């Protein structure tokens, strides 16, 4: 990875293409405007949310690019991760030398009801017919998690408290103010057991990375994707996401490393309990154990396995199509020593970025680190 740029997340006056162009400009500037032959743009719902389509030629024009290849990639809330993986595969296939990956979403300017309805389109039709929304289904998953493991609901609060604490040092975060456990519990109920502060916000934002063939501290080690049944009711397992487990397994296999070699992760925490499920699904701890890791500080920046030092989705904000690439960009910045105030106490060598598409119907795991010095 040659350059990383992250835009400010929050309520932004600009349109989607402006947000993409801003981060794209920073990334191109960082590589001295070397030529780009592949442009990949990830966005979930550009039309319904931002009233814009054809984001690839629109971004190319704004950035003065004339790429040989260009794709728009959609994978619901994992669109940014999918865009990154698509670009990486093109480079690995030898079809391009240098790729610019952009991902963004423009979500504000609509009522919460409208945004909720648009996001719910990534759910199974039978779930939409039942009036289910993302928070509704997430609350059912959270209940199954609590029931299956006898987990402590306070662990959900600990997730929010930790991520909001970390976001304090993130100049791009939408929520740079810490919250106490009491504030989490006192925030209004969205869908039991999920309170407002357990849930992702509505955000505008974008990220950009430049990918080149070659090595570096944030080279692509492993790329994994996994699917699960589209409808929640058709899944074998409800307290864990098969799509993450498969994505992680495939990424570890490609990287030829085990979970023990991973130093930290940016996990998809659109709802606080997902961070627990994610940590278990990527194999860092066993089923039902993640709550203790969050409660005892093991996942804090100074803990044994830091999770979301950027503040994650709960602290940073959730421009849905951008979040997957934001996670990858934040992992890369740590590995490249560019994380500034967010830098972990010990500079990590291998990081994991995880992204959930829809209600975990199609998830992604990306492993980054240096290629040099690894066993062939």
């Amino acid at each position, binding site marked *: 990875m040659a350059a990383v740029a992250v835009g400010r997340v929050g309520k932004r006056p600009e349109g989607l293409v402006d947000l993409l162009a801003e981060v794209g400009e920073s990334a191109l500037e960082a590589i001295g405007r070397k030529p780009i032959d592949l442009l990949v743009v990830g966005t979930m719902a550009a039309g319904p949310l931002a009233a814009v389509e054809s984001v690839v030629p629109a971004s190319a024009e704004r950035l003065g690019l004339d790429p040989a290849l260009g794709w728009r990639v959609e994978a619901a809330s994992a669109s940014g991760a999918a865009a990154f993986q698509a670009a990486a595969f093109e480079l690995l296939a030898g079809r391009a030398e240098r790729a610019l990956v952009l991902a963004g979403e423009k979500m504000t300017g609509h009522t919460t*009801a409208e945004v909720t309805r648009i996001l719910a389109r990534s759910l199974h039709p039978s779930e939409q017919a039942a009036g289910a929304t993302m928070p*509704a289904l997430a609350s059912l998953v959270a*209940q199954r998690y609590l*029931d299956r493991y006898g987990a402590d609901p306070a662990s959900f609060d600990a997730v929010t408290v930790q991520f909001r604490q970390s976001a304090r040092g993130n100049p791009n975060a939408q929520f740079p103010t810490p919250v106490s456990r009491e504030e989490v519990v006192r925030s*209004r109920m969205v*869908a*039991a057991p999920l309170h407002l502060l357990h849930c992702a916000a509505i955000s505008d934002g974008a990220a950009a990375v430049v990918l080149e063939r070659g090595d570096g501290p944030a080279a692509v080690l492993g790329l994994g994707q996994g699917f699960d049944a589209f409808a929640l009711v058709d899944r074998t397992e409800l307290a864990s996401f098969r799509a993450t487990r498969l994505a992680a397994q495939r990424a570890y296999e490609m990287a030829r490393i085990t979970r023990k070699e991973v130093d930290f992760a940016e996990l998809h925490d659109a709802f606080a309990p997902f961070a627990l499920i994610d940590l278990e699904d990527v194999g860092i701890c066993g089923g039902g154990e993640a709550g203790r890791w969050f409660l005892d500080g093991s996942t804090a920046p100074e803990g044994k396995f830091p999770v979301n030092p950027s503040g994650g989705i709960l602290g940073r904000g959730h421009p849905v199509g951008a979040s997957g690439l934001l996670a990858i960009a934040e992992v890369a910045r740590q590995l490249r020593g560019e994380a500034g105030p967010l830098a972990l106490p010990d500079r990590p060598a291998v990081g994991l970025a995880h992204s959930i598409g829809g209600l975990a119907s199609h998830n992604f795991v990306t492993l980054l680190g240096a290629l040099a010095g690894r066993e062939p």
Partner: protein
Amino acid sequence: MTVAPSFRVLRCASCHVHFLPRPGLCPKCGSRSVRPELISPAGRVLAATELHGPPAEGAAPHRIALVELSGGVRVLAVAPGRLPALGETVEVAAVGDHVELRSEPETSG
């Protein structure tokens, strides 16, 4: 008390799994050989939630329940009356394009 089969599902002729009516193939084995069958509408609540916010407009919250029927078929049902308890036995019925929990039977005089 046994409940008469009244809930329509599909059954795969190859792998015999029951699943909810939908276009396409058997979700387990991919067979095209599926036929409708009525099963008991009684099931157990695995999870249920009351949604404060969209799509509920106005005062009444929208409630949905995840119900496991006999044979392992799971349905997502709208709960129009009240929020059922986890583990509670309920009955479901198809209503238009979705499934609802049936209101409790009237107590007969």
